[in-house]
């Protein structure tokens, strides 16, 4: 049974339909990358999965539970977390407080250990833990955003364009950390990326979206070697 199952979901904002019959699956421990041109509806899939938009039709199931009508705060309790592309840190809160908010729904005594693991994952955050997140660089903010999402100890993390606006060196670092999180924490990853080639290289499987539908799916390598996908979405 897949961990996340998006079944023929149609939805949009207000009267504007963005997605048509989108179906996506993420298995336990898997890295899934969604690529496609601007306006293909990639971020909208993320929002629908996380309950920020409710499907007009279709069904979303997570870990055996129908979450189609769940609100985000209920979805967090099921063990899924989401890193939005922009405004993904509390700028007025310190790094430490941002991490605390990531564990908001947890009340167990493992939270302190978890924070230590996050500091080991991103040592820079430990150095800056008393600093306001709003005073940090783009790459550091991305670390704060991912770190606070991981505080939940989730089964699945949704990443919306984690490399957007970062310097190439920082992009490599963030991608390397995502692979590390997937392997050593055994957390499934579903990510949306503009940086199609790099994200397919690290993904187990990928989906290519266009005009609100999923067009092609396959393993990362299959998609990288597919001539149509290469010509249309990977820049030749």
């Amino acid at each position, binding site marked *: 049974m897949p961990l996340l199952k998006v079944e023929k979901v149609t939805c949009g904002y207000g009267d504007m339909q963005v997605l048509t019959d989108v179906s996506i699956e993420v298995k336990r421990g898997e890295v899934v990358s969604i690529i496609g041109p601007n306006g293909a509806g990639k971020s909208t899939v993320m929002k629908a999965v996380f309950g920020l938009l409710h499907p007009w039709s279709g069904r979303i199931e997570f870990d055996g539970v129908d979450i189609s009508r769940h*609100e*985000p*705060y209920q979805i967090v309790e099921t063990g899924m977390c*989401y890193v939005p592309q922009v*405004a993904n*840190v*509390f700028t*007025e809160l310190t790094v430490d407080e941002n991490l605390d*908010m990531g564990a*908001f729904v947890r009340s167990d005594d493992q939270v302190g250990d978890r924070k230590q693991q996050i500091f080991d994952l991103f040592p820079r955050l430990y150095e800056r833990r008393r600093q306001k997140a709003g005073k940090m660089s783009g790459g550091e903010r991305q670390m704060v955003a991912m770190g606070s999402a991981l505080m939940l100890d989730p089964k699945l993390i949704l990443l919306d364009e984690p490399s957007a606006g970062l310097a190439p060196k920082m992009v490599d670092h963030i991608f390397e950390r995502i692979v590390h999180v997937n392997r050593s924490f055994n957390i499934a990853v579903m990510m949306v990326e503009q940086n199609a080639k790099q994200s397919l290289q690290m993904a187990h499987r990928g989906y290519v979206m266009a005009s609100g539908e999923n067009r092609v799916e396959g393993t990362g390598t299959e998609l990288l070697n597919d001539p149509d996908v290469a010509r249309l979405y990977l820049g030749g």
Partner: protein
Amino acid sequence: MTQAGEGVRAAFGPRPGERLKAALQTRSALASVIALFFVLLIAAGLVQDASAGRILSLFVWGVMLGGVIGLGGIGLTLVYGVLKFPNFSHGALATLGAYIAFSTVAYLPKSEPIGPFSFGWELVAGLVIAMPLVGLVAIGVDRVMYRRLRVQRSSLVLFAMASLAMAFFLRSVIYLIWGSDFRFYYQGRANPALDLPLGLRVQADQIFILLLAVVLVTLVYLLLEKTKMGKAMRATANNPELAQVRGINTEKVIAYTWMLSGALAAAGGVMYGLASQLRPEMGFWLLLPMFAAVIMGSIGNPRGALAGAVIIGVAQQVSSAAISPAYGPGVAFVLLVLTLLIRPQGLFGERS
């Protein structure tokens, strides 16, 4: 701006006019104007033959009044932070708190005054009852009115108008229940001023009010900085969408915010009633100084609201050495206008 334009700007710096404008809008410019305003107030008081001891006493009373304004202002600024609208009915919540305490005092048997104070334990009981009760009223008002506007994603102006309507509604309810007469917690009981060194004359009640304000403000600070719900309130104020994404039930945070700000407003109202007398418009006259304090201290910033409140409280009291105390709200208004003209984002705000 084009890249060429930026190059020119880098080579020659901003034009002198812009540089002057920028210098006039700094934090220190606003602080200096406020300081100058104080110098003028004190000078005016001395010209009117007020003694140094009297001005010093007025300063202390001003800090006390600042505590009262600050308790209201912290609630106002928290509600603004989380819900993003100016709550014009905040003064009415303070009035309601004062009258609930009044009814409690009237209902309970009178005990002996505590120590040097004018009041007995029944006023303390009134305070303890009024705070959560007004908090619940504030939550109730939110459920009935603001939540519906929130669900419909109404515009800011509708929220502001709704809260103004609620201010008149609550005031009418207070008129209906308690009438329009002036009231005192203890009719005819005096609280003579204590003679302290340096010609300082302060009532024991005023010292009580000041200490209570300090205690409540400290508790609010600890709540916001140290507790999970406090951090969640700050997080929700900072970025409501992300707060939801992190699993924070923002409706619950909103309810806590109303409870806290309603309770603080009630405490402010009880203290204001103790310092002067109770009347149905008392909260309305506190509203202007509260807004002035909140804007001066940068809207959404609780510590700023407190600092602004102390500045405004002291200015109001010191002005009474030179002009009629009835002009107190006018003094707050002058400070509000000065802030808006010089630095609308307030003393602690970043440039927007």
